[in-house]
């Protein structure tokens, strides 16, 4: 299906070999090794370019957006015109400006909640896998609990009690409900790593647990951590859109989810404002597509079973 990477990684030694090769090449181009591997995969490259475009739009949002996204002094419920490419909302706001600024919200939530839940997952997974014994029993129970408790009802319940609905609350709620999957994968990875010779050597050399984890183990889990982050960020972007669509988002922030919520409530369906309805969903879908395409590259890197033969 995908254009096979020049050298497809096999478990264990080969992956390391490939990383070494990529690092060699990266030394000339001054790019990190994993990036070179990803860039060589055709689908992944398209995904990276798409994501890059979204990041650029988000960074330059105040410059690109023609109007203030909350400025409501335009005629209400306009169809697309020259002045308002995607029309206006039922409150008289410019839909195109909201779309541009919405990219910012999605990426901030994806980045922040992705990092936060990756961090929670990393700390819990590493501690469980490295210490083992009763600590592992307790933490594994927590991880499995986090995996089975249905996420959206939990998010909705947590968000419902909150006195203020800020963007940071949304990020916290998403991270608290979304860390378990990454933690489980990191735990099983560290269990296979901790008995390797170089870890034993470091322990005999008198290194402390914290130092061994930080210096010997984490660097060998980079690709796993990146995969986990991508998955968590994707989940967070979807989660924010869903919560905002349900009207549980931050009312002060413009996001694609709140746009769809407003379009649904503001009668975009009845007034026939297809652009107001289609644009936010399409943007969300393209952002998710870019992550999926990038994941093709990462999957081929980390899981040899998924490669095509």
């Amino acid at each position, binding site marked *: 299906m995908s254009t096979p990477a020049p050298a497809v990684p096999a478990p264990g030694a080969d992956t390391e070999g490939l990383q070494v090769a990529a690092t060699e090449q990266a030394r000339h181009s001054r790019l990190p090794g994993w990036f070179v591997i990803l860039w060589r995969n055709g689908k992944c490259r398209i995904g990276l370019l798409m994501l890059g475009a979204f990041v650029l739009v988000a960074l330059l949002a105040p410059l690109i957006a023609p109007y203030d996204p909350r400025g409501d002094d335009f005629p209400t419920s306009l169809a697309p015109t020259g002045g308002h490419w995607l029309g206006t909302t039922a409150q008289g706001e410019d839909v195109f400006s909201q779309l541009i600024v919405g990219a910012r919200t999605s990426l901030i939530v994806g980045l922040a909640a992705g990092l936060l839940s990756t961090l929670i997952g990393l700390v819990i997974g590493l501690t469980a896998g490295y210490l083992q014994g009763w600590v592992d029993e307790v933490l594994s129970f927590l991880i499995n609990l986090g995996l089975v408790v249905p996420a959206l*009802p939990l998010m909705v319940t947590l968000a419902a*009690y909150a006195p203020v609905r800020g963007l940071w609350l949304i990020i916290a709620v998403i991270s608290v409900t979304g860390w378990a999957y990454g933690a489980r994968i990191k735990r099983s990875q560290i269990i296979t790593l901790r008995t390797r010779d170089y870890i034993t050597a470091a322990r005999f050399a008198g290194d402390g647990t914290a130092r061994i984890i930080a210096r010997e183990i984490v660097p060998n889990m980079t690709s796993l951590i990146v995969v986990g982050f991508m998955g968590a960020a994707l989940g967070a972007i979807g989660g924010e859109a869903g919560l905002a669509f349900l009207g549980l988002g931050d009312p002060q922030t413009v996001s694609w989810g709140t746009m769809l919520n407003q379009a*649904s409530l503001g009668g975009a369906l009845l007034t026939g404002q297809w652009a107001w309805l289609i644009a936010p969903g399409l943007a969300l879908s393209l952002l998710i597509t870019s992550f999926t395409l990038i994941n093709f590259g990462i999957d081929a890197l980390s899981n040899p079973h998924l490669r095509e033969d």
Partner: protein
Amino acid sequence: MAYFARRFLFFIGTLWAAVTLNFLIPRLQPGDPAEAIVSRLAGQSESIDPAQLQAIRIMLGTPDGNLFEQYLQYLGAVVQGDFGVSYTYFPYSVTHMIGQALPWTVILVGVTQIISFIVGTLLGTWAAYRRNSRVDSVITLGSTFLGTLPFFWLALLLIYVFAITLRWFPERGGYGGGSSPGWSWIFISDAFQHSVLPAVALLITGPIGWIIGMRNNMVQSLGEDHARLAVARGLPRRRIALTYGARIAILPNVTGFAIALGSVLGGTVLVETVFNYPGMGRLLLESVSSRDYPLMQAIFLFTTVGVLVANFLADLLYGFLDPRVRKAETA
């Protein structure tokens, strides 16, 4: 037996944790959700029964009494299924409201889950059987692409095209104003018409997980030694695919399916909200927007317990179907 004992312990442990989480969430909140509800209820109706107020305090937190006593009272109430009265639908009890919403959700989400599972497993098997052919890439790329579409957005588009523009189906709700729930033909056909669009919305994205899971598992199991030996023995290709590949590959999907059926109880908040469908998901969102904490807590607990029971049954099933799991756990 060690496998089953461990699974049972995990089930009891998660059940306890879920019930306790449900006890803690309202009590960790700033302010006093229980008293807010009680005072609003008292203002709303003169005829409120002190016993009903007490039930709400047990569920959401009492101003006096230590936490441990509250916890024991709460556990007692949960065991008896006494979750208090709904604030929005007073004087109906929370259990009554759940009973009203449950059949709608079970029928809509249950049926679409079963169809999604069957369709997804078949397509996944087909894609793996014709691996790297055009069929395979159409199925895998098609489902990957569909999977990137936010399904509440798809639901909105369905309403826009088929309900508002073409007027083929009713826009929202579970049944029309002209019929009332009951076993009459008019009601059943009306409810069916109302369920078509939500069902389509769920069926577009529903099979994707099963397709990808089945295909990847089967590609893997066809690469294992016993399958390669079957090829070497010259067995027919179709037989190898079905008895050596699909039979093993379907195991994780079967347990996934058991869990999916358990999560049916919670309904689907997004799709039910878009279609204003009278199921559990919409009831949860409604209780959240009107700050009906007793109803919200009960739905959350009910949904979680449904998933936990299903997860436990799936573990048992997996233990019976795949002896390797039992061995791995004892070793």
